[in-house]
């Protein structure tokens, strides 16, 4: 049951503006909206993504947000397809430009033969450009006319959505339902204006300006079970499903929406999320929750993680379960706060003082943001360790459609065990699992434990004995080696042995797979492996490497002083394999398929037809 009041559907019949146009079937379309951040293009992009999720289509979105408080140029790109969508698309098939600057900046993102729909009130395109078809629609004045009153041009995003709905023969009824949900909680005039603008766009006669309309082919037939959301939301829900009930954080882009989500949701589950005074306070509170017997979460983005590092080393020493999220952005320092980068891998694995072995995972797409949280929780509980999850800005904000998780089988309801421990109790046995005794547990032997950052013996008692530091350092390391043993070798996508193996981690999953597909179409023997477990790594990688002539590690970070990115550096030191090369980039944008192929080409002169 929806908790949003749904107003009655409008009774009037609207004639679509595409009436009379010939339609062409398409399987895959990339639509880019270019405007300013206050124009609401993210919100119509999100509605299109939801529609795709509800219409048996796959979808992936991509957005850029200016690092300004309000305003600034912004884009939202939606890729809809009847098959699998792995990346948000290199080039747009359809470009909607709201301003002259949006036109100037983005016209080159349109593929040859693509359509540029522009707001004829603001944009003067170069119509002599033979590469594109230009379609002028007075988005601004037509919106004002449709809504009337004092609404000005607010609503032109909805007008554009109506146009898209008509051009691509999308399901108007379903879109209207999504619009109603979106505006359901607001003043009724807001919803009315949105509907008026949408319908005006939908009915706008296109016969004079457009030759063709398109019909999106319907793909998957699992409509009932598909959902569409962004990576931060999926991660948030994954944490909740994993039984995380407490956490603490501090605001920083692009992590904040996870903490905002948890702050609202956790109280419903009998927990809470605290906004701390700073990053150090946040990680300390989270460790306090963990000590109290609750699997808890803290998170941030790169700069905030730097501040948390001292306390996280304590977490490793005290051996407490904790989930640590890093939604990576461009660094160093404030860097590119609203762009994507994968430059915190070394920080996650090694970025603390002392020998601090810790588990590092990375989700590969939006859907995996949900499942990686479950895996992080499983490992944190079983091994009683802090577990890092490396998401990134692109995953955090983009929307994908995926199958509804099987919640019944996945959801974990947490238990706080306060039954007493017996005389044998040792929190840090040299030959077994950590057994944390949260406060409130009676210690029948009478000697209560102090959980400490000082080196300690099996009972947690501080000691500076040289051999104990050796044993305990090994113990903390060997826990991760035990974890490694239980992981399955990564699957190879594409060919199992051959010329080129692409290796990736995190959000490069989609583009890498699409690059493999494209190269295999041209008969190249290319495969790919993707690492969800980065520390420890899944076993069996060496064997896979042996089966290929070239190994390229594709990652969004710098090639460093010696020509290798961060994962490539780790793999080289792990396997001493000179075949390992890097394809790196640092422009703050996600990988295009073309860039991966060009990267291989640089070494191998593979010719793409």
């Amino acid at each position, binding site marked *: 049951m*929806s908790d949003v009041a749904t107003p009655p559907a409008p009774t009037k019949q609207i004639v679509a503006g595409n009436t009379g146009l010939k339609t062409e079937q398409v399987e895959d379309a990339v639509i880019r909206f270019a405007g300013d951040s206050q124009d609401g293009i993210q919100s119509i992009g999100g509605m299109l993504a*939801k529609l795709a*999720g509800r219409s048996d289509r796959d979808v992936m979105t991509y957005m850029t947000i200016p690092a300004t408080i309000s305003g600034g140029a912004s884009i939202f790109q939606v890729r809809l397809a009847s098959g699998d969508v792995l990346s948000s698309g290199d080039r747009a098939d359809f470009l909607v430009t709201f301003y002259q600057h949006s036109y100037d900046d983005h016209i080159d993102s349109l593929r040859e033969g693509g359509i540029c729909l522009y707001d004829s009130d603001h944009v003067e395109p170069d119509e002599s450009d033979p590469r594109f078809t230009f379609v002028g629609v007075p988005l601004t004045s037509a919106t004002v006319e449709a809504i009337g009153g004092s609404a000005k041009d607010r609503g032109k995003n909805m007008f554009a959505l109506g146009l898209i709905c008509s051009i691509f023969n999308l399901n108007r009824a379903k879109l209207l339902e999504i619009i109603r949900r979106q505006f359901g909680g607001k003043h009724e005039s807001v919803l009315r204006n949105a509907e008026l603008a949408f319908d005006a766009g939908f009915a706008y006669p296109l016969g004079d300006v457009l030759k063709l309309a398109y019909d999106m082919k319907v793909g998957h037939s699992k409509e009932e079970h598909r*959902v*569409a*959301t962004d990576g931060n*939301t999926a991660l948030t*829900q994954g944490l*909740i*499903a994993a039984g995380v009930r*407490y956490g*603490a954080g501090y605001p920083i882009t692009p992590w904040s929406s996870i903490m905002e989500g948890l702050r609202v949701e956790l*109280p*419903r*589950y*009998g*927990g*809470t999320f*605290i906004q*701390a*005074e700073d990053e*150090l*306070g*946040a990680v*300390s*509170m*989270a*460790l*306090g929750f963990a*000590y*109290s*017997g*609750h699997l*808890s979460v803290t998170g941030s983005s790169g700069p905030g993680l730097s501040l948390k590092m001292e*306390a996280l080393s*304590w977490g490793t020493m005290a051996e407490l379960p904790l989930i640590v999220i890093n939604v990576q952005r461009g660094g160093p320092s404030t860097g590119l706060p609203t762009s994507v980068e994968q430059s915190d891998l070394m920080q996650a694995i090694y970025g603390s003082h002392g020998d601090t072995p810790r588990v590092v995972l990375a989700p590969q797409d939006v859907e995996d943001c949900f499942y990686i949280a479950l895996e992080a929780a499983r490992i944190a509980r079983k091994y009683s360790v802090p577990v890092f999850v490396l998401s990134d800005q692109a995953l955090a904000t983009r929307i994908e459609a995926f199958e509804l*998780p099987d*919640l*019944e089988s996945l*959801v974990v*309801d947490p*238990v*706080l065990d*306060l*039954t*007493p421990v017996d005389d044998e109790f040792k929190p840090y046995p040299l030959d077994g699992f950590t057994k944390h*005794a*949260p*406060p*409130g*547990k*009676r*210690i029948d032997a*009478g000697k*209560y434990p*102090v*959980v*400490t*950052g*000082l080196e300690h013996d099996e009972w947690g008692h501080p000691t500076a004995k040289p051999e104990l530091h050796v044993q305990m350092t090994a113990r903390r390391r060997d826990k991760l080696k035990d974890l490694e043993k239980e992981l399955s070798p990564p699957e190879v996508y594409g060919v199992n042995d051959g010329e080129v193996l692409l290796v990736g981690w995190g959000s490069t999953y989609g583009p890498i797979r699409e690059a493999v597909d494209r190269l295999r179409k041209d008969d190249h023997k290319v495969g790919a492996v993707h690492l969800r477990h980065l520390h420890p790594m899944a076993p069996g990688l060496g064997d896979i490497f042996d089966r290929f002539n070239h190994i390229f590690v594709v990652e969004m970070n710098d090639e460093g002083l010696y020509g290798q990115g961060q994962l490539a550096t780790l793999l080289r030191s792990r396997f001493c394999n000179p075949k390992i090369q890097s394809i790196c980039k640092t422009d703050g944008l996600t990988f295009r398929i073309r860039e991966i192929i060009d990267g291989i080409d640089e070494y191998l002169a593979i010719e793409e037809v």
Partner: protein
Amino acid sequence: MATIEIKEAPPFEAPELTKKALKADHPTWCPGCGDFAVLASFFKTVEKLQIPHEKIATIAGIGCSSRFPYFVNGHGVHFIHGRALPFATGVSLSRPDLNVFVFGGDGDGFSIGGNHLEHCARKNVNLTYVIMDNFVYGLTKKQTSPTSPIGFKSKTDPTGAVDQPINPMKKLVSSGATFVARTHAAQVKHMTAMFERAINHPGFSVVEVLSECVVFYKGSFDEANPRKDGKFELIDEKQDDDSEDDWKRHDVSDQNKAFKLADEPWPGKFGVFYEVERPTKNTLEKNLMAAAQKSSGNKSSIELLTKRFEKMR
């Protein structure tokens, strides 16, 4: 309804909690350190209040006095420098069944942990914080601390400290702490009385104990010690006894009067400077939780998640 299931201990006839049961390792403090008396006074208070043994949680950061949890046989945490308060916040908020105590020194509390003190006080987290103030960094062997008086000669200020020291009472009152008291490690009876009141106070209660470092700042608090020819002057608290002069006494709920008291010349007065009741962070979070559970229909975790995913369709 989605909650955290608690596997409780079976019913248990607890023996009387004694000082003997509470004693752990022999403290590593220097002979003559003021902190010994603080420990003894803490034992006395807990023994008197008969807090269930397993429900005691002592938490500390780094410093001489922050070794405290090792010397108490109870659940303890030796955390990192300056962050004991946010850690204890996590414990207090998620475990209403516990009695949470934080111990630390002036460097841990007022310097590296200053920001946390500010916010823990503002949020009125339910816990008791004992600051053993010795006006010097002892563990690292005599550097200037945030409470070192101007002119104090340390290894980092060989010609004498130049910076204005913190006034702990003023800082605590202005931060929003709801119970603020000051005592002296050489006055065990007074100290114990202050601890008892602090523990019984609902909310963030702080006791500053002047606790002498006999190695690096000998004689620092003699002026407040009658045995060293000093004067231990108590705050004359308002009694509400209808006596003629009651209005002249200190009203602990009056912030301005607390500031005025805190401005008195060294060594100043001892006792409760400020005490008010304000909703604790614990209560406020609990209320938010209850409201959220009610407005979402007291659903189970599966039902809540299913509904949430329904919205993504």
